[in-house]
Each structure stands twice: as C-alpha cells, then as structure tokens.
C-alpha cells in the first residue's frame, strides 16, 4: 500500500476515533439519549471495508453504526444530529443512534441483531435480477452469527450466487457474552464452509489488510463471484454500551493487551517508519478536532422533531388527504 493511501486511511480512522470520543462526551452530558455503543478500536473495519464501496453500493449496518455510516460517506452532521435526536439527522431525529437511514448514501442500519442479513440477501437478489452495476455489503457482529437469520440469509445468498459481501465484524463480545464461550467454532469464518464459501479471516485491526481484502472482494463481487463471508477479527475496547459492568465479563489486563494492538497505533507506526513526519500527523489531529468542534456546535443549535413529524410517514394514505395514522 502506498504511503499516501495509508496516510489517507489513517486520517479517516482518526476522524472516526475522535468522532467516537465526541459522542462519548455528549453521552456523558446526556445529549445522546439512548444507550451509546462506542466504536473505539474497530476503525480499520469501517474504513477498510465500508470506505471501499461506491456511493451507489448498498451498506447495511448494525446497532453500532456510526463508524460504518461515516466511512460510507454519510455526513458527520447528519449522523451526529441523528444521535442527538435533532431534525437534520439522517432519520429526522426520530431514529436515534441505532436505527437510521440515509438513502442518498445507500446506508441503512437497525438495532435488531442479525436482521440485516436477510435484507442484504433481498438487495443482492434484486441487484442480480435487475442486472445493476452495484453490490451490497452487510456488516454484523459475532453475536449475529449465532442467529437463525444468519444461516437462512447466507444459505439463500450462496445458492443464488448473489453480489453481497457479508462482513462479520468479530469484536469478540456480544454484549457481555464472549465469543470464545458463545460461538461453537474456533473462527466464525469456518461457518462459511457450510454454505460452500471460502473461509476468510482478516486481521480487522490492520487497515492495510482490511482495505486490500475489501478492494479485492468488492471487485470479485462485481464480476459475479459473490457472495463472500469475511470474518474481520477485532476487539471492542469499550463496553457494549457506555457504563456497562465490564468486570462481569472480562479482565482489565485483556483490554490493555488489545489496546496495544489497536489499528491507529499500528497504522501510525507504519507511517512513521516510512518517513512520515510526526508533526504532520499532529496537525491532522488538530484539524479533525477543529472540524468536530464545529459539527458539535452546529448540532447543538438544531431543533428537535415535533410531534407532527413523529406522526408523519407512518404510511402512505390510501386516499388523498387521509390523515389516519396507520
């Protein structure tokens, strides 16, 4: 990977890291209302995979979506405003941080674990049937790989050879349930064999590897070689939600060990080794910080949705002027 591209990807990951920190701070001030699911440590998955898609490719994300959304091209403003329940949010401030839609960027996320895999199958089916030059990517976690929907969706996608890249973002915890205890096989990618697909596990904390694999698999999917199932092995550095009782399911030492292997440290080491100036990276960080301050200040000024907006678009009325909520 060229030093220039690596620097660019590092910048995108750093943006996600600082954005996550901003969200955490807003959550602590109770300006994000629902449970907040931090993304720290998983940035190489979002930037590596989601960032490799074209705008008209469809991305289905999870209950921990903000990294994926921003990497796909959704604006920081729209994503933050949604988390803060404000009108200019992706879903008008009515969805919150776990479920929102950005149709312009073909981004969809939802908070029911495993549900997005069957929808991805349907999107892939429609793309293939309509012979569109698009693909679908679907992200989910280790927890989702234990649902029935995972099996149903992958089987169907595999028998119909659909243009979908399924990414299992294995952050090693489904809420408080460690994958090592709650997933029956050693690696989630082994489950691909059950659908006649290749076993692919990547180091999800290595941006060079995630982007390289993403580029290759997206290209192969466009050429009709899909579907693919990729396990991106990473680690959730923070709790499932802010303030969860972490001591009930993991040791502090384990977290510290993984903190040494997180994607930003590794990318930075490689950049410095290839001769990039540390001051340049510090300047980049400063620029990001200023940009995020502006986004935060803007978001704080935005209005909340009204009760009328909460009752709108529930359905398309059968007759002109009909107002009954369906």
């Amino acid at each position, binding site marked *: 990977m060229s030093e220039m591209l690596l620097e660019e990807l590092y910048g995108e990951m750093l943006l996600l890291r600082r954005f996550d920190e901003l969200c955490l701070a807003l959550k602590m001030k109770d300006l994000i209302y629902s449970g907040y699911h931090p993304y720290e440590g998983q940035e190489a998955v979002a930037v590596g995979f989601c960032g490799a898609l074209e705008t008209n490719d469809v991305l289905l994300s999870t209950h921990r979506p903000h990294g994926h959304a921003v990497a796909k091209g959704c604006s920081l403003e729209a994503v933050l405003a949604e988390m803060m329940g404000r009108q200019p949010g992706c879903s008008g401030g009515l969805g919150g941080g776990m479920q929102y839609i950005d149709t312009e960027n073909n981004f969809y996320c939802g908070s029911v674990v495993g549900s997005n895999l069957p*929808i991805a199958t349907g*999107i892939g089916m429609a793309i293939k049937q309509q012979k569109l030059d698009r693909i679908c990517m679907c992200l989910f976690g280790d927890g989702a790989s234990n649902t029935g929907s995972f099996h149903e969706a992958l089987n169907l996608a595999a028998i119909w050879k659909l243009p979908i890249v399924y990414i299992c973002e294995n952050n090693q915890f489904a809420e408080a349930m460690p994958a090592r205890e709650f997933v029956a096989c050693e690696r989630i990618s082994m489950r691909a064999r059950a659908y006649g697909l290749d076993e692919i596990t990547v180091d999800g904390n290595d941006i060079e590897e995630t982007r390289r694999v993403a580029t290759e698999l997206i290209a192969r999917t466009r050429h009709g070689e899909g579907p693919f199932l990729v396990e991106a092995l990473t680690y959730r550095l923070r709790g499932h939600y802010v303030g969860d009782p972490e001591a009930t399911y993991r040791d502090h030492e384990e977290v510290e060990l993984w903190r040494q292997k997180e994607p930003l440290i590794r990318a930075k080491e490689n950049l410095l080794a290839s001769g990039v100036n540390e001051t340049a990276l510090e300047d980049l960080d400063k620029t990001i910080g200023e940009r995020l301050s502006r986004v935060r200040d803007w978001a704080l000024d935005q209005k909340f949705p009204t009760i009328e907006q909460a009752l709108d678009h529930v359905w398309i009325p059968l007759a002109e002027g009909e107002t009954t909520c369906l």
Partner: protein
Amino acid sequence: MPVITFGEAIRQAYSEEMKRDENVFLIGEDVGRWGSLYRSSKGLLEEFGPERIKDAPISEAAIAGCGVGSALMGMRPIVEIMYIDFITIAMDQIVNHAAKWPQLSGGKVKLPIVFKTQGGAGRRNSSQHSQSLENWFVGIPGLITVMPSTPYDVKGLLKSAIRNDNPVMFIEHKALYFEKGEVPDTEYLIPLGQADVKRKGDEVTIIATSWMVLFALKAAAKLQDEGISCEVVDPRTLWPLDKETIIQSVKKTGLCLVVTEAPAEGGWSGEASSVVHENCFRDLKAPVKRLCSPRTGMPYGPVLERQIIPGEDSIASAVRDLAGEARRK
C-alpha cells in the same frame, strides 16, 4: 359472468399484475413447482419463469428479508408465507423493518410488499397449522391488513394490494380456496380500506371476517325465515378499518354482533366493538356482542374443530339472543 374458485381468482390476479408490471414477482416455499399449496400460482412458473416465480427454501426470515431488500431496490415482491403459523419466523422482518423503514427514511423509502399467507381452521391441521393471527398485524403501525372472503374480493383486493406502496398483510383462509363465485372477465380493482355489505338487512348488523362471512350469510338466510332481518358487513380490510360503513349499518339496526375465528381477547373483534360503542352508543338497543373461538389451541379432528369455531348455528343463536334482548326492552 364466469364462476371460478377463490384460488383461481388469486392466480388471475398474479398473472394480470405480473404482466402489467415487470417489477412484480412471487417468492415463497413451493410457489413454483407446486404452484403453491392450494395451487393458487399453478402454471405461473411456466408462464413467467423461475426469476419471477421463485421457489425458496424453508427459510421464512430470509424469504421475508428478500421482500424487504428487493422492495428497497424498487421491486414489488409478493412474499408468500405458506401458513400464517410460520410467519412467527418472519415477524422480525415484517414488524421491525417493513413497518419501520418507510417512516425512518422520512417517506423516501417505499416498501410495496405483499406478505401473503393463509390461516384458520377447516383442514384439521390442529394448533400449529390453523391459527388466526391477524390481530398481531392490526396492532402494528405501518401495516395494512386484508382478509378477503370471496373469489371476487380476493382478486380485486390482491391487485390493489400489489399496486399499493405500503407493506400489506394479505391473509387468506385455507377453507376458502375451493369456494366458487362470480368473477368478471374484465379488469377491476377493489380499493383497500373499504368494507362491503354482503347482505342488506335492518334489524341486526353482523360484522364478520374471512371464512366467518360465509357462515354469517347462511345464518342470516336462516334467520330471515324466522323473521329476523340481518345485515352482514364484511370489512375486507381489518386496518385501515372502514368505520363509516359499520357505523351507518349499526345506526340503522341498533344491534351488532362481531364474529371472528380468532379468540376475542386482545383481538380485532374488540377494536370493531369499540368503534361501534364509541360511535353508535346512543343508537344501540343492547351492548355489542362478540362471537369468537374460545381461548384455546385448535383441537385436532373434524368434530372438535367445527365445535370450537363459530358457525352458522352459533351465529344464528347469538343473533336470536341479541334480538330477544332488544325486544324485551
């Protein structure tokens, strides 16, 4: 006018709508090779090919997800769930996604999906293949719920459901597929959300759904001989409910019986009763009466099954009680 079966009326609706719009397709278990369990898509695989008549594995969540995903991409899927009892596996897609995403997108996403299934008793399939689960869907904002009772209605309503841009729950009854009725050979549509007065009368209003409409009509004919005039209202669409037709009828008769195969508790029959009480209270000569299946799993075998669900005799008896109560006043 040609006389055809309920199943044939469905087949005609599919065929006409698939010819009209290339985005319409059917997906479900055994919809192709078998032509669906009750042959309502018979011959369509040959006519439209496997891309548009898609046999799917026994994967209700994935089938329903295919509906949501393909609708998102501009297609108009008809998702067949073989038995309504199996829709439990697909509920996540219907309730959490099909019913939610249009609103979460601020109206930019349209999900024109018909979730087509069949429920009810009548074929001695006992408690996991005979349920009446329509109440669940009536309780979900964002869904339209349709329950047709005649070949004429099923064709016109299904065509409207396919053309509608909302997700529609289209619930047929397994005892109706071989019922015959007149269906014109020229095209027609029946608007969703419109009830039909299946029989005019002026003493008692019977509101009945799906298979129960047939029993209500038989009971009404019998009661006519006894001097009790019944009006039979078939809502056809459970939600949005055509309250006007119901209110008009009850304001005229002053008596109302609601008949459903689903148990009364927590169900649509209570919704219909409330509509009557809220709008016709001063016109009522007696409180609304409900006749529904008791709160139990459907028993196996032909004798108990018929005893459990409302029928011609129990409807007639309930109407006599209601009329008697009013006359005593």
